[in-house]
């Protein structure tokens, strides 16, 4: 019998899940969730603002409690696993990364748009020099061809990353498009390969399994799927599926189910589900983190959030451009008002 393949799981409930709670996690909640995840055997537990360290802003939403307090809370309860953080160059800085390292973070996920890996060089190098494990993330991977992903992954490898993730920020990839991207990356680099999925088209678990079949060994997931857009790959479901397929994750299935049901679900302000707006995101290929910002802006200006998202797609907006949602909603509302007021409309 061949040896069981192990898959490294990073649980991002306390980072990607922060989007779904509009960044309102308290230190007490973070400690409770992190303790549960740690006791269930999660290898990497990620804690950050949804948009990464330094993301607490007008643009992305202010955190209820400072990153420092949240990281301290997690650090104080994690015994077996490793504390992880996310940083998006351009939003967070090297100082944020140093702060996280000082608070006990051992894994740094450094994320860039799929074509812009070279902005991550200084942060990857710093994290490595501080002895951290580095996971490079190529966001909105559906916008890059397999060749582009291979090229950008090589850059991250050269800067010192230990792993590169095909990152489906829009939940727009399907098994065939996951397969070709993971394969291209695996063929191009010597370091680890992984996948970060979103569930906007209900494909997160299936896509993760496809990635594993192609050699990905690092998978991001969130308990209860708590994450941006329609949420992420649900950790407890992934663990069950991996178990049935004969992969090992080191995670206790009953315990992670308990964490999901008893600790995380009660924190959810509304169920993470595939609603019409988040489905539109997967369909149109829009950054999942835009969801609540688009909803809010659409409501403020009385327009359909789907129209806002379609316009975002037309403008080829990338991660981090949350600032344009209000402007788009405002412009759409003005256009609608002009149409209402135009003489041709009155005659019709």
């Amino acid at each position: 019998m061949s040896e069981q393949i192990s898959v490294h799981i990073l649980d991002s409930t306390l980072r990607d899940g922060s989007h779904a709670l509009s960044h309102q996690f308290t230190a007490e909640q973070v400690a409770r969730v992190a303790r549960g995840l740690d006791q269930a055997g999660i290898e990497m537990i990620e804690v950050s603002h949804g948009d990464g360290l330094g993301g607490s802003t007008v643009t992305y939403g202010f955190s209820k409690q400072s990153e420092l307090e949240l990281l301290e809370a997690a650090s104080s309860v994690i015994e077996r696993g490793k504390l992880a953080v996310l940083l998006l160059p351009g939003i967070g800085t090297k100082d944020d990364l140093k702060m996280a390292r000082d608070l006990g973070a051992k894994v740094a996920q450094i994320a860039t748009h799929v074509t812009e890996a070279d902005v991550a060089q200084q942060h990857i190098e710093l994290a490595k020099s501080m002895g951290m494990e580095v996971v490079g993330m190529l966001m909105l991977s559906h916008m890059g061809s397999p060749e582009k992903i291979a090229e950008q992954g090589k850059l991250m490898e050269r800067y010192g990353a230990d792993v590169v993730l095909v990152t489906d920020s829009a939940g727009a990839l399907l098994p065939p498009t996951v397969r070709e991207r993971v394969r291209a990356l695996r063929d191009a680099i010597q370091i680890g390969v992984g996948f970060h999925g979103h569930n906007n088209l209900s494909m997160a678990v299936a896509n993760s399994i496809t990635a594993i079949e192609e050699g990905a060994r690092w998978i991001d997931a969130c308990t209860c799927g708590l994450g941006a857009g329609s949420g992420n790959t649900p950790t407890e479901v992934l663990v069950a599926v991996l178990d049935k397929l004969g992969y090992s994750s080191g995670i206790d299935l009953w315990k992670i189910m308990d964490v999901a049901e008893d600790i995380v679900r009660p924190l959810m302000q509304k169920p993470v589900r595939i609603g019409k707006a988040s489905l539109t995101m997967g369909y149109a290929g829009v950054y999942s983190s835009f969801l609540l910002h688009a909803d809010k802006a659409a409501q403020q200006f009385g327009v359909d959030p789907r129209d806002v998202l379609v316009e975002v797609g037309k403008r080829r907006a990338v991660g981090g451009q949350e600032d344009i949602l209000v402007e788009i909603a405002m412009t759409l509302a003005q256009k609608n008002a002009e149409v209402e007021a135009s003489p041709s409309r009155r005659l019709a």
Partner: protein
Amino acid sequence: MEQIRAAILGSGNIGTDLMYKLKRSHSLRPTIMAGIIPESEGLARARQQGLAITTDGIEGLLKQKDSFELVFDATTASAHKQHAPMLRAAGKIAIDLTPAAVGPYVVPLVNLEGHVGEPNVNLVSCGGQATVPLVSAMRSASPVEYAEIVATIASKSAGPGTRQNIDEFTDTTARGLQRIGGASKGKAIIVLNPAEPPILMRNTIYGIVEESDPEELRKSIEEMVARIQEYVPGYRLRAKPLIEDFPGRQQKKVTLYVEVEGAGDYLPQYAGNLDIMTSAAVKVGEEIGKHLRAGTWKRDRSEARL
């Protein structure tokens, strides 16, 4: 009017674009361009435009030091750190477009008068030039507790220097929002967008300001935009200033959407982020020129420096 003579150090994209802008200036005249790559297109164009050229960089330039008063340095931060003391020793005023920041940060219309007499001034960052004046405009209507900007630029307009040290942009711009814009706290974000055709530079500026008269705020902002347009014609608000109550506090949140289209002198039009640097540099040069003609570009020790 007696024109002040200017040298351009650096024959790359920025130096070349700067040359065309200087050619249009009434009060400045570009006389020489210094590069280190003999076959560079910038030097060829400079020669075509009637400038003297040297391929020996700063040394070549200083051999002809009687032909200019001002030097625009459009090389790199590390090169400028070497150039700065040499230019100073030669008695030349340096306008530094690199991130070296040897001299104080200056933003035209906002704080140049506080640095009269400085031998070396630095232009902050493209994001700083595009946003600090508007934060300052808010500040003149009401105290600004917090200013935040998101600068989104076309991937094609971000060179390797910017990419390898993106923190320099965020840190420098945030400092500019505070020290020059007058915000108590500042935060800057930069996003690179690879869309084709390339997008124009856009900046979203948020200010959390003390409770104040929205009309006065709006007026101050719109007046500043009009003044910026005098030296950056492609600078515009994409929408009227959005002024809302800031939830839970006796404060207002101001949101401004700015777009910067370049003049297309040498740099492509989408690269408003680069154009605003060369435009601001020329503006700073012209203001310094006024002082030079009036004999007032001297440090007045009796006045506190801003």
